[in-house]
Each structure stands twice: as C-alpha cells, then as structure tokens.
C-alpha cells in the first residue's frame, strides 16, 4: 500500500520535476556555461556562433577590468537602492498600516487609495514620475504655488554622489563589515551570556584592528583608484519605487494586525500599555514573519528592477544604472552574450543570498512542526 502510494507520488510529480529541471535549472546551467565562453566574438549572431571556453574571464573583467567601471557602479547603485527601498517601503507601509489599524473614518477608501499604485505597471508609473521629477516642472515647481522659490534639485540627473568609497579598498571594507556584524552580535549577547559573547567580540575586534592597521597591505581589488558612491540621481527612482510599493507592505501589515486578537490588545491596554508600546512590544513582534517576507519580496524586486528605471531615465544614464539594465544592453544591444550571461549569473547569486536562507529556515520550521 505504502509502496503504491510512493509510485503514484513519483508518477504525478515527475512531469513537473522534469519540466522545472529542464526549463529552470537546465537554463540556469546553460546561462552559466555561456558566461564561461567568449560567444562568437564579432560574429555573435551567426547561425552557429563559435564558442570558446574562456574560464572566468568575463567575471574577472566585470569586477577588476578597466571597462567594468559602469557595471561596478551599477552594482553599488543596486545595493544602495535595495537598502533605501527596504527602509522606505517598510517604514511608510508600517506607518500607514498602524494609522489604518485604528479604524479611522473612511478606512476602506484610504486602503484602496494607498494600495492602488501597486496595480499600475512600472512603465506607466515610471513615465508619470519622469514628468513629475523633470527639472523645471512637476515637484520642483510646487513651492511656486505658495509664492516660494522653486526647487532646483535635479532628481534624475544630478551628477553628485555621497557615501563614496574607493573600489580598490573593497577587501578592507568587507572585513570592516564582517567585524561590525560580529561586534553587534557579541554586544547583544553580552547581557545574557557574557562568556559566549566573547567568542563573537574577540574575533570582531581582531578583524577590525587588522583592517585598520594592515588595510594598506591588503591586495587592491583594482589597479587604479575608482570611487563609487550613492548617486543622488537615484533618489528619484527610489522615491517612485517607494510610492509604488509602500501600499503593498501596508496591505501585508494590515492583514497581520487584523489577525491579532482584539483580546490581546484589550489586555495590553488594561495593563497600561500606550498605543505606541502596544505596537512596539506586542503587534510588531507578532507580525515578524510578515516583516521577513516583505524584506525578501522587496529585496529581490529591487534586484530585478528594470522597467521603472528604463522608463524614468532611459538606457544610457550611468548615474541611475542598474545591473539588470546593464545585462539587457550588454546582451541585446552590444551583442555580448557571454558578458550578459555573466551579469545574469551574478544577479542570480545575489538574489540567492537573500532567498535561500529564507527558504531553508521556513523549511526547517515546517519540519519542526508535527
């Protein structure tokens, strides 16, 4: 009986396993293989392009080559973009959800209004925001209605950047980051288990000191100085994305808050909790799974972002570039399929670092339950 079940299970599952294996993992593998070749050189679009194995040349060029500067800036942009989008969309979404959770008049109406941007396609909202953020119109001339000077900030075309760092010192910066993470974990443990926390604190301090004192001796990631930073021109794009996605996080949180029993809230209030402390100590910890899934969804949306940026600043605006845009242009405009595949694999790996831990932990949780 058990055996028969097993056979049935295998039979019903096998079509999807084969299809997914072929069309998802097979193609990922194929893309990876292409990224290791030189794909035809100049005659890239021949019927049977010549593909020579080239090892990791494409990857090395992207990270340390003279001409990979654009890609490196795109990567830095993507990191800043993800962080700002996460902070913005979750912050604004949470705020709206808390506001609506107190059931003000017209709650249903506002809920629809805030969720509405989600239903627009990125191309539409990108075009609208492009107009809104144009240098001599839209948002910038709003103060004129109040009789003030118009803004002169160039939302999508500033050339300045802040938080700059030298790509040469990438290794040093990475060590600092690791040491910072170790220190934070250590300090949080310190109150509970001082002895265990030393296991985190000591290597953290050692790494930090090492990077501080020996940073000069670390190998340089690049042969020349190249600064990258947070380009101010990406502000406009971040603003548009937050506008579009905060309604979505609001809906997520609102669903979570509604799921919390009213008794719990009443009990907390009886114990003298204010509204702020109710949310801080009770509601938000209870919707932690929602926060985690919002982080996962938003971070990989920001890594795959293409259409919004394309609609807002077009293909060749290095200031607001994004690896996904770069991948498309490298592949389909410059006909450099191998390099494009390499960018695709890098993006895939970065997205994987967000999603795989999440999948593993949720799998474990499910296994843990009977």
């Amino acid at each position, binding site marked *: 009986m058990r055996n028969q079940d097993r056979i049935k299970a295998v039979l019903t599952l096998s079509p999807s396993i084969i299809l997914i294996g072929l069309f998802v993992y097979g193609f990922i593998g194929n893309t990876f293989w292409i990224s290791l070749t030189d794909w*035809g*050189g*100049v*005659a*890239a*679009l*021949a*019927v049977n*392009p010549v593909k020579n194995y080239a090892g990791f040349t494409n990857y090395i060029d992207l990270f340390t080559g*003279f*001409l990979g*500067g*654009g890609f490196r800036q795109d990567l830095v942009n993507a990191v800043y973009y993800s962080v700002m989008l996460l902070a913005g969309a979750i912050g604004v979404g949470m705020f709206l959800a808390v506001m609506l959770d107190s059931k003000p008049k017209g709650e249903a109406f506002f809920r629809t209004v805030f969720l509405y941007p989600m239903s627009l396609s990125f191309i539409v909202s990108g075009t609208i925001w492009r107009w809104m953020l*144009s*240098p*001599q119109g839209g948002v910038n001339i709003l103060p004129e209605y109040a009789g003030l000077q118009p803004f002169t900030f*160039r939302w*999508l*075309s500033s*050339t300045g950047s802040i938080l700059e760092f030298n790509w040469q010192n990438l290794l040093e910066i990475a060590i600092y980051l690791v040491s910072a993470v170790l220190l934070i974990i250590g300090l949080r443990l310190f109150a509970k288990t001082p002895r265990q926390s030393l296991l985190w604190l000591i290597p953290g301090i050692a790494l930090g000191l090492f990077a501080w004192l020996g940073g000069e001796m670390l190998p340089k990631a690049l042969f020349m100085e190249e600064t990258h930073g947070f380009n101010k021109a990406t502000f406009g794009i971040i603003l548009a994305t937050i506008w579009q996605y905060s309604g979505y996080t609001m809906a997520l949180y609102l669903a979570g808050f509604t799921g919390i029993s009213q008794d719990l809230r009443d009990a907390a209030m009886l114990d003298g909790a204010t509204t702020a402390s109710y949310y801080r100590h009770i509601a938000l910890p209870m919707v932690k799974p929602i926060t985690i899934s919002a982080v996962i969804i938003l971070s990989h949306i920001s890594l795959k972002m293409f259409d919004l940026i394309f609609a807002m*600043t*077009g*293909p*060749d*605006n*290095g*200031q607001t570039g994004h690896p996904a845009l770069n991948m498309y*242009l*490298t592949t*389909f*405009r*410059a*006909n*450099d399929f191998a390099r494009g595949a390499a960018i695709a694999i890098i993006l895939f790996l970065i997205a994987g670092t967000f999603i795989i831990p999440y999948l593993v932990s949720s799998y474990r949780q499910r296994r843990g339950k009977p």
Partner: protein
Amino acid sequence: MKTRIFSTCLAVAAATMLLFTAQTSRAAELKGQLEIFSWWAGDEGPALQALIDMYNKQHPGVTVVNATVTGGSGVNAKAVLKTRMLGGEPPDSFQVHAGQELIGTWVKADRMEDLTPLFKEQGWMKSFPDGLVKNIGTADGIWSVPVNIHRSNVLWYIPANLDKWGVKAPASWDDFFAIAPTLKEKGIVPLALAENWTANHLWESVALASLGADNWDALWSGKLAFDSPEGVKAWELFGKVLAFTNNDATSLSWQQATDMVVDGRAAFNIMGDWAAGYMSTTKKMAPGSGFGWAASPGTGGQFIFLADSFGLPKGVKNRDNALAWLVLLGSREGSDAFNPLKGSISARVDTDLTKYNDYAKSASADFGKDRIVGSLAHGVTANEGFMSDFAAVMEMYLKSRNAQATAKAAQQIAVKNGIGK
C-alpha cells in the same frame, strides 16, 4: 522579299508582344506576402506609408505586412529583430542604419545577401555617390539599399536672436569660444545639449573638427589610435565645449534641447537635420528666416552622414517580393516620394529637388560636393558593440572629465570590438 519583311515585322511584333506579356506576367506573378520590419511609426509613419502605397500600386497581388516596433533610433526594434533572426524567422526586409551597424552585426554573422547584382542591374553604382557606396559595402559586397540621408554635423540657431545678441554663427570652435562667455554672462546657454546619446552626437562633430576628415577615417580603419595625441586632443576640445552647455542636459530629450534654442534660452544646438523637420513641421517655422543652420564649427565642407537602409536577410520566405521592394526603395520615384515626408534628403544624385524644402535643398547641394564621412552615433562607422561601450565611455568622461583616461578607454573598446578589422 516582301514576305521576309513581313515576317520580320511579325516576329518583332510577336517578340514585343511576348516581352509585354512577359513583363506584365512577371509583375502579376508577384503574390503572397511581404513583411517589412522598421521602427518608423509616429511622425515617420506617413513617409513609410507612401512607399507602401506605391508598392501596392505596382504589385497589387502582394499583401504588405507592416511590422513596426516603436522607439527612437530603433532601441526596441533592434532587440525584437535579433530575437526573430535568432529564432530563424527573419522578416522579408528590415530597416537598419547603413554601415557598420548592419555590417558588424548581420554581415559578419553571414545573415545577409550580397546586393551587388541588384545594384549593377539597376544601374545604382552611378546613382549613389561613391563615398556612400563605400560606406555601405565591404570588400565582399554591398549589403543594403539606402533610402534616405541625414546630416549629423549641423549647427542650429534662430537668426533673429543672434542679431539681438549681436553674435554670428561661429565657423570654428575658436570663434565659438570667443562669443560663448558673453552669451553666458547674459544668462543664455551658449550650446544646448540633451540626454546621453546627444552627447555622443556632439562628440562626433567636435572630434571631426579636431581631427579633420582624413584622421577621422583613419580612426575607424584602425590606422589611428584613439589614445594617440590627436585622439586625446579631441576629448580635450570636447571638454572645453561641454563647459558651455546646460547642466540639466541628461534629463532633456533632443526636442527639448532644440526648444531651448527656439525659445531663446540657448543660442545654438548641434543636432542632426531631423531638427529641421521638427522645427518646420511641429513648430511651424520657416527654414532660413525662422531658423538658420550652418555646418557645425570647424566642419565646413564636410558632411557626416547617416542613412536608413533596407537589406535582404538570407532565407526569407518571399525573396522576390522583397527584391521588388528594394528596387522601389532605390528608385528615384520611391526616394522622392519618401524623403520630403520624412524630412531627409535622397541618397541619389539625380533627385528631383523641386519636391523638397529649402533646408533639404541646401543639404542636397552639400551632399553633392562635400567630403562625406560616416557618423559614429548613428551606426555608420562602428559596430554595435563599440557603440554600446562608447556610451559607457561617454558616461565615464561626463563624470570624470579626464581626457587621457577616456581616450585610453576608447582605445580599449576599439580593440575589444575589432574596429578596423
């Protein structure tokens, strides 16, 4: 004797008859479909439609499928075309910028048919200027039929405004640098610039002025390096010119840059001659009196051309129909039906100038006598790989303003993309 003459006459008559029927039957034979692929929609749609109407009249049996993919200079169309070609489903004929954009991508990949026999049969070797035929062909053949010619190195201005400010259109960049500071003091942008590709567009005009036509050609044949002293000098001059442009350039479209000149916020603009079409058709200004033009500074007597053309991919479904389409495109009638509507000039030397406006007449005259060189920004001199990388190099320059490093980067992308090979 009589019978002989009679029979000869009869034979000739029969032959003529046969010839006629043969011809009509040949024309009638064409049937089925013809799919033409282009990015001519919107303003350029009527010009394409005029050609399609002519084709329908000549070959009523053929249904023309007009596959357009919108998007300026074919950004989207080119990507769609690539997926179709890779998928083994080529359109019968497709629009492409004449020159390396076609050769580097499709000819090197052995996807196009050589059109030399068609050029010989139609007598086009003499109908098109030599400089043009050289640029659209390689040693192995001629690869497309040019439909129109645009000029890239044109300086636009409003004569009335210049009079008001007391300046004249500069003939060289030194002239420009002499008048630019005074314009700037008056709060007028000396040279209007727009988004990234227009910077590439400006670069080619500046570089041609700095290098001269011979060095320009040498650059693209691989005989002169981009990081040679001459090459670096071109970037330095470009940097000096950029100092007199508007600082919100990257968020403007080319039309908005032209608008700055029209509204009197800027004095000059360097743009291709589609700006003439924009000003005369959309802005209803008169060529000559309403708006004026000159060759961009330092490029008098030189003509940076770009051309749209149609080619014949290998393995198309309706080859005969496509050939008939190409014959129409290259003909004087077809060319003169299309170009006045598109706002470009005919590639042929025997064009009927009465159909064109004043700007086009002057451009045609220049095209006939000037030194013709190819455009980089619009696909004549370099393949798509170089063009795409060059956009990144331009970004690098706009950010760093380092002529030496940028020239070096340009040389690297030239080597990588096999320029001159």
